[in-house]
């Protein structure tokens, strides 16, 4: 019986031609939290209540960081949505003792919920701190459970979870595309946050396709990556706010 090859960060050789990536235009982001709620709705992310939220245990897969600059009266506030950066050299992948997280051929950092045993080593190793943990059993008081998305599993307590670029939507789109025969167009499939962002600050697409909107935007002089000096090579590219793109 031939053993299944576990695709990890190093063995990228059989990468399919596609590599998903996201561009976040900080000049368009207004910090309205629509992506945060859309992510909760799409991925069955639980609500933890006030006491847990106060002790730093909220489970947002995407969070809007707000920075202050300057003093009153010329004070400036800036927003930065931070989600799992799907790093190509992810520091969280080698440290998981049970292969619950690994790098897929399409450039995603996958988190398999029912394989995770909750050592939280990946959570400590992630420099962006985007991996959240189910401290207690998430409950959805009846009938809130009816809303849960059947394409996403409902996690139990003791499991790390994180943004998956809405893998269920990507998989559904790929299945439909292969069923109907025509290839997946650029922008045809979008994670829930990208779909809902009112000011279109989030753009999603295939980084390996030079024609795609994300590839073109990634060449902008405003492009930068979060904590780039760490060498994690994230797949999320930010566009600096405050300047014209032209």
């Amino acid at each position, binding site marked *: *019986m031939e053993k299944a090859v576990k695709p990890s960060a190093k063995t990228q050789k059989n990468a399919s031609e596609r590599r998903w990536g996201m561009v976040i235009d900080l000049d368009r982001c207004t910090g309205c939290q629509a992506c945060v709620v859309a992510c909760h709705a799409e991925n069955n992310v639980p609500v933890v209540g006030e006491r847990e939220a106060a002790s730093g245990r909220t489970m947002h897969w995407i969070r809007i960081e707000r920075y202050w600059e300057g003093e009153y009266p010329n004070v400036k506030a800036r927003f930065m949505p931070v989600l799992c950066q799907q790093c190509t050299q992810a520091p969280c992948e080698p440290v998981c003792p049970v292969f619950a997280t690994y790098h*897929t051929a399409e450039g995603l950092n996958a988190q398999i919920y*029912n394989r995770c045993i909750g050592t939280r080593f990946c959570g400590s190793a992630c420099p962006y701190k985007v991996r959240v943990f189910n401290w207690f059993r998430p409950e959805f008081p009846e009938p809130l459970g009816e809303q849960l998305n059947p394409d996403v599993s409902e996690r139990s307590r003791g499991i790390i979870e994180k943004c998956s670029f809405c893998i*269920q939507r990507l998989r559904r789109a790929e299945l439909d595309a292969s069923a109907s025969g025509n290839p997946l167009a650029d922008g045809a499939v979008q994670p829930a946050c990208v779909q809902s962002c009112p000011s279109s600050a989030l753009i999603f697409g295939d980084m390996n396709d030079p024609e795609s909107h994300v590839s073109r935007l990634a060449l902008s002089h405003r492009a930068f990556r979060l904590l780039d000096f760490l060498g994690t090579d994230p797949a999320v590219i930010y566009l600096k706010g405050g300047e014209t793109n032209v």
Partner: protein
Amino acid sequence: MSSTGVRRISLGRAIPLILVGVAVLVTAAILLNRRVAQAAPDQPIAFNHRTHADAGIQCLFCHPNAMRSDVAGIPSVQRCVGCHQTIASSSARIKTVLSYWERSEPIPWAPVTQMADFVFFSHQPHLSAGVNCETCHGVVGKMSVVRPVVTMDMGWCLDCHLKQPEPKVARLTDCLACHK
């Protein structure tokens, strides 16, 4: 000191006895486990697949969505009543079907093969890849009472996925293919 000697020997013989006992226990547990897993769930109406298959009805007639959607779908009461209003409408079982139809209440069929919550399974790619129903559900045509022939767990699925042509194996053995 002889008593100590005897006791020593019995201790010696005791250990293999214990091992054998444990082995028996374990195999009993496995067999019981398998029987529970493969028992045919009891159904509200004793539906007989064999008679329908012998009558020449295709699987897709009652389970039409297998080609188009994740779920093959369980036939609606309308589908049963379509034929059984006229055919064999005298037999007791058909009368219960018709009673459901009058009360316009769905027949509470017990699902036979069910995936765990964290598994993503879609019939459509499997059927379009040429997998036929018997591979996973056994020869239902011959079964009077349907019961799961195969215990569908990860090893069983992976075994088949690994046998696919080379370019597909990487995609099919990617955890996210089946884990959601």
